């Protein structure tokens, strides 16, 4: 079974802190994605990566950056956390250029910025 894990289920940080959210997948997937999920807004894509050291902006990249140094690991970085970044963050992975292949999701990290 594909497994996507995220480093924390719950995280509380202070405004201005640098925050790292880690995601690891064990199925050798090329694609990895970071979404944020907010009530009434669904899932919105922050960044995605289709190869090591490659990244592309999603729909809401402002205030975030990412790192992919190894194929199995995709990190989301909040350089200076703000209260409007309080949200559920979901990581996902999938095979590359496979069209209808499903994305596999991690359990999510609920981040609260105070």
């Amino acid at each position, binding site marked *: 079974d594909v497994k*996507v894990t995220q480093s924390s289920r719950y995280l509380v940080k202070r405004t201005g802190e640098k925050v790292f959210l880690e995601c690891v997948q064990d199925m050798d997937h090329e*694609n990895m*994605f970071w*979404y944020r999920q907010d009530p*009434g*807004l*669904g*899932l*919105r*894509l922050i960044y*995605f990566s*289709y190869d090591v050291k490659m990244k*592309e902006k*999603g729909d809401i990249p402002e205030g975030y950056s990412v790192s992919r140094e190894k194929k199995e690991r995709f990190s989301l970085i909040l350089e200076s956390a703000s209260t409007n970044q309080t949200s559920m963050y*979901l990581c*996902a992975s*999938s095979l*590359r*250029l*496979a*069209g*209808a292949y*499903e*994305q596999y*999701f*991690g*359990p*999510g990290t609920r981040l609260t910025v105070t």
Partner: protein
Amino acid sequence: AQTVTQSQPEMSVQEAETVTLSCTYDTSENNYYLFWYKQPPSRQMILVIRQEAYKQQNATENRFSVNFQKAAKSFSLKISDSQLGDTAMYFCAFMLHGGNDKLIFGTGTRLQVFP
């Protein structure tokens, strides 16, 4: 740009009954895929069913089936014989064929199944 709309924020159904969740989308492209994902409370999001736009036949997975109306850009999910374990958020999603594997999600429908 493609958009996905789910107009029912919340729905409820009694156990063993049938319920239909609505989804409409907007695209000018002809080749794409459509998905329904399920997010149970405090559990990971999983794929329920997928539909290729070039296929006229509606996809079916056990108790889950879709009504795909390409001309109307409609993609509804029917859950038959609803079970308590079907209680979840359901998201409709769109992916362009030959694109960069990005999913575009709707805002979700929260389904509650009552005993």
